């Protein structure tokens, strides 16, 4: 039958497209909307309720960094939260394994254990990050943010920025 055949063809093409899309998104590059205000002003997230969630920035995330897990200070990364594996956070990487970091609002200095990193949001007033849940294993990292791709007036590269005087490699 004519329509049966073209429906089957459409299904096959959609399935192939989905397969290729999922592979590219998992291995190379993907895009994701930002929610919440913990990375203000780098990203302007949307509110978490439905109509608002369409207005946030959309960021481009690259997955090539996951081959060697080599990150630099100041990279913006996305990671699974240690308290809820289904949730992804986007924060800035402040300290790498072996660095000594001064925990803000307390005078303790702590060394990041092997295989872990310290992440903080750019907007410390409204950010749930390593100041609450401690250093996170690098294995939780799911990608590195390189660009903002929506809305058009905010398109641009995301730069590496480090707060001064917080870490020491010794």
């Amino acid at each position, binding site marked *: 039958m004519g329509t049966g055949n073209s429906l089957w063809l459409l299904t096959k093409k959609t399935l192939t497209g989905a397969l290729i899309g999922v592979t590219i998104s998992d291995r190379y590059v993907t895009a994701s909307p930002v929610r919440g205000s913990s990375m203000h002003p780098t990203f302007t997230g949307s509110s978490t309720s439905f109509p608002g969630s369409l207005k946030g920035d959309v960021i481009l995330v690259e997955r090539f960094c996951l081959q060697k897990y080599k990150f630099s200070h100041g990279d913006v990364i996305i990671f699974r939260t240690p308290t809820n594996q289904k949730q992804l956070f986007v924060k800035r990487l402040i300290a790498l394994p072996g660095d000594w970091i001064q925990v803000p609002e307390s005078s303790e200095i702590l060394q990041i254990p*092997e295989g872990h990193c310290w992440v903080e949001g750019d907007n410390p007033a409204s950010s749930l990050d390593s100041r609450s849940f401690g250093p996170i294993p690098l294995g939780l990292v799911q990608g590195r943010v390189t660009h903002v791709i929506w809305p058009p007036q905010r398109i641009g590269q995301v730069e590496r920025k480090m707060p001064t005087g917080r870490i020491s490699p010794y």
Partner: protein
Amino acid sequence: MAVGSRAAAWLAGAARRIGSVPWRNISAEAVDRTLLVVKAACFAHVINSYVVSLALVRGPSMLPTMNLTGDIIAVDRVTARWGTVAVGDVVLLRSPENPRKTVTKRVLGLEGDAVTYLVDPHKGDASKTLVVPKGYVWVQGDNIYDSRDSRQFGPVPYGLIQGRAFYRVWPPEGFGFIGQKVTSL
């Protein structure tokens, strides 16, 4: 001269032969074949990451369940993604000490469970108990005498779990399901 005209004739002949090759058909077929390879690779990636994959596990930390020299096991990827890993499951997880390394251990405690473990089995019976925090799991190797696990690096976030080992594929003598034996203190 004779040489020059022979060269010209040869060149003209070559141009004609090249022109008569069906380039459009060949390129269409090449694109088709490449697309087929790409589709197969994507299919393999999706199955490998979301359904089931194979892994080679080596080392002494899971004796006697796993061999020292290497077993090939089938790893189910669905259970970990859905959050239904249970106590007694053997899981593959990214090591919290080195994200490039994948280790195999048994889950002995989920979030909220109280876990009791021997601090150092070589040196007597001292044991400690703690409650696993929300979002974390406690993993231990079956061979507690030679295993680096939660007793050294603490409970690990659930997000590090890559999959659940459920079947041994190689060596043939060990063919079969991997049991849920829970080693208690």
